[in-house]
């Protein structure tokens, strides 16, 4: 994993090919996004920025997506680790189940969550009897985000763990390190880059989550109205306002993701 080696010279056609491919991909992704930028005016952008409704939504989005990502990391890391390193009956079924939320159209995911955690739901009715309602609260926003984005993290984390050579764990063990410290001092640092990548995916997916949220948590300003919901709400009236909100979301996300990448590099890069 050392990096002191240089890559030699690639044949010209490879370098050009790769350059063209990357350029095309960047164009493919950036043109639509720029299209959004061109649609709005700077005044409108500033006006939106100072709109308390927008602020509410932005703060709510960032807070809920952060909490979701945190929960996903806390729950997903051990699950991914166990699935990567331990054999138990039904492991692959569990692993495939974890992927299912990816396939559900978000609205259906929200519907499913209602059926489970709503007040008439399989689990929710139980809570409701104790006076706790889950649906239509900020908690529901977080649950919806976790549901749709946890698979991304677990998939990525499991792949990173599986790719790690077991010899380091054995070395740590032979030096008297029980599983938990080994995990934190040896394994985590070695797969850091992969886990951060997974967390970024989950965070981004949670930030953009709309369908499951509005179905399960409803659209209530200040409580469950995240940025995507604010964008949809605005879209019903004024498309430009909706695009302005989208641009704000894009800029903020870009800054956050770039910052996280810059701050938390994998151990291989300095």
């Amino acid at each position, binding site marked *: 994993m050392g990096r002191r080696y240089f890559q030699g010279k690639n044949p010209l056609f490879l370098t050009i090919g790769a350059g063209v491919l990357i350029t095309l991909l960047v164009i493919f992704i950036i043109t639509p996004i720029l299209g959004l930028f061109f649609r709005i005016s700077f005044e409108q952008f500033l006006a939106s920025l100072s709109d308390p409704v927008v602020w509410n939504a932005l703060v709510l989005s960032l807070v809920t997506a952060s909490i979701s990502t945190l929960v996903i990391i806390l729950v997903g890391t051990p699950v991914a680790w166990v699935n990567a390193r331990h054999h138990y009956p039904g492991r692959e079924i569990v692993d495939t189940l974890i992927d299912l939320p990816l396939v559900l159209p978000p609205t259906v995911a929200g519907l499913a969550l209602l059926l489970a955690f709503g007040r008439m739901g399989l689990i929710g009715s139980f809570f409701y009897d104790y006076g706790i309602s889950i649906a239509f609260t900020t908690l529901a926003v977080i649950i919806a985000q976790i549901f749709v984005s946890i698979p991304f993290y677990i998939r990525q984390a499991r792949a990173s763990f599986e790719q790690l050579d077991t010899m380091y764990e054995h070395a740590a063990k032979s030096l008297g390190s029980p599983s938990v410290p080994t995990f934190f001092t040896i394994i985590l640092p070695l797969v850091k880059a992969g886990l951060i990548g997974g967390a970024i995916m989950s965070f981004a997916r949670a930030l953009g989550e709309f369908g499951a949220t509005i179905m399960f948590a*409803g*659209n209530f300003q200040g409580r469950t109205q995240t940025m995507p919901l604010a964008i949809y709400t605005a879209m*019903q009236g004024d*498309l430009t306002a909706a695009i302005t909100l989208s641009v704000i979301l894009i800029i903020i996300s870009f800054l956050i993701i770039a910052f996280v990448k810059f701050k938390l590099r994998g151990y291989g890069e300095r």
Partner: protein
Amino acid sequence: TGNQAEPGKTELTVFAAASLTGALTDMAETYETSHPGIHVVLNFDGSQALRTQIEQGAYADVFLSANTKHLYALRDQGLMENSSIGLFAKNKLAVITPASNPGNITTLADLTRPGTRLVIGTKDVPVGDYARQILKKMGNDSTYGPSYNASVLANVISEETTVTGVVTKVQLGEADAGIVYESDITPENRDRFLVISIPDQYNVIAEYPAGIVGSSAHKDEAAGFLAYLKGEQGRAILAKYGFALP
């Protein structure tokens, strides 16, 4: 409606508001039987989305909107065949509760009861706008009293961006009541709700306009379809799906 374009048939592309899904699917079928040369292609989405698509150059022959706002906006941009525009359906609003009626709502007055979980549309979707108009009218009426409007709105737990959102939440029993179009109570789901009608003096009549899109290449066929829609058979189907007629 078959899928692929069949040779020799004229393809008539109809953009229709999502709330027309059932009625238009039915109608396309009967229309194709009586007009063998025509194949009706349907595109259902929210009226706002359809409008955006037409603005961005989507090809459509006919646009059926769930409200006048979006269709008139297109007209004002010169994207519609002005002479073809006309109303073809009306829709009233109603309060629905789940069949099990967990909130025990039997009259409109019950909506003020604290703790009632009410869902309506956001103020920018027509159904939400109309709901607010209705509540305001009722508040101005002495039968319900001036605080009616505010205390009902205080019970709102979610402002949906689509009517389907309202319907689904009520159907699942997650909301105690919702304000929707009468046409949302479709033949398939009728027995899943209790319906509380809103008296005409408070109700708002939603208007469904239709028109031929300016860039249509099949204006004659489009006109024919509009005539059918507004004619005897069209009206019958619309009525079956709970629409009021102009």
